[in-house]
């Protein structure tokens, strides 16, 4: 039997691991699996975990006290998921005790994102240009798509900080993409408006939410799957509405 002090630190370690993973965009079934494995490695056989995209419930047994954690921000960072995964492997292999694991996890939680905003903006611009080519566009559409996509990503980045409502940020970013692509093409910079726009909105597409929603639904996590699916649909709607708004004016 574990005493109360041990139980508290097990809860602390498992919760922080789950928190980092959920915030970085992991699938809920992976979060629950990781927390389970770590709890078992610390000697808790029947840990109860329930994770949703917005919160985690954890208790060390059916009749034990329950701890709860609210997740509000979810900036995607796959690197942190991989790092937590490494820690959990070492914990299950018995290489780390509770305190060491907690210190390492805390470091991961506080670590800065792996890529600076500038690198991400450049990546978004390149992605946009490449998608314009992949969707059978001409090379003249490459640069306008790059510029519009990079611009849209910058707007998205700063609007998200300003408004703290992701869907609105996506809407404005898509609107800026629509307007700038229209201006580029009507001034002879770029040939096909639709290719430029499609390429430029691709960095905003909710690919992570779609794949996560499917993975969660398949694994039987119906609530998480459905809520992530709704998140993806709302994002797609915000992008579509924002980008099409330009056609209402011209």
């Amino acid at each position, binding site marked *: 039997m574990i005493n109360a002090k041990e139980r508290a630190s097990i809860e602390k370690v498992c919760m922080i691991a789950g928190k980092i993973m959920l915030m970085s965009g992991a699938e809920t079934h992976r979060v629950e699996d990781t927390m389970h494995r770590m709890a078992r490695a610390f000697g808790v056989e029947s840990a109860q975990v329930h994770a949703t995209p917005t919160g985690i419930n954890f208790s060390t047994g059916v009749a034990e006290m329950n701890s709860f954690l609210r997740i509000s921000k979810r900036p995607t960072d796959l690197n942190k998921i991989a790092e937590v995964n490494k820690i959990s492997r070492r914990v299950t292999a018995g290489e780390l005790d509770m305190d060491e694991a907690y210190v390492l996890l805390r470091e991961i939680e506080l670590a800065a994102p792996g890529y600076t905003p500038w690198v991400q903006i450049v990546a978004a611009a390149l992605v946009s240009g490449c*998608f314009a080519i992949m969707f059978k566009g001409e090379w003249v559409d490459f640069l306008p798509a790059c510029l519009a996509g990079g611009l849209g990503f910058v707007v998205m980045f700063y609007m998200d900080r300003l408004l703290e409502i992701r869907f609105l940020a996506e809407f404005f970013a898509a609107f800026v993409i629509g307007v700038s692509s229209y201006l580029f093409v009507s001034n002879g910079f770029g040939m096909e408006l639709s290719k430029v726009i499609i390429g430029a909105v691709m960095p905003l597409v909710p690919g992570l939410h779609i794949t996560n929603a499917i993975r969660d639904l398949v694994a039987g996590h119906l609530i998480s799957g459905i809520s992530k699916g709704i998140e993806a649909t709302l994002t797609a709607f915000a992008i579509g509405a924002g980008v099409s708004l330009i056609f209402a004016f011209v």
Partner: protein
Amino acid sequence: MTILAQLVTSFIASSGFGILFGAPKKSLIQCGLVGMSGWMLYYYLTPGYMNTVPATIFAAMLVSVLSFICARTFKVPIIIFNVSGIIPLVPGGLAYNAMRHFVENDYTTALELSAEVALLAGGIAIGLMFSEVVREIVRKLAPRK
């Protein structure tokens, strides 16, 4: 020449998405290769051999199996590879066209396109589930030491 352009652009697009999602720096090349393979299969199959929906299913299957192999080999979560690999198959262009027709009050075409988008998303779902099938088979046939 077009094939070469497609190879290069799909590679850059997939690994670029890896950067946007904050994938580990070491995995970016693999992300690009997974995405490139999926996209090239899709590009080869459409429109010559089959419709977009079955082509998307097969391409997504390839992406999910390759991601599974990468995840196993490099001991990182599978999500890193299949998220950036699946991106080229997401029907962004069609969804955009559907939205555009809605805005232009052409609801008939818009609904047609939306139905196709829904089918393609379902196709991606089926393809992604395939890696779960492979995982179960591998686990049952070759139990871990």
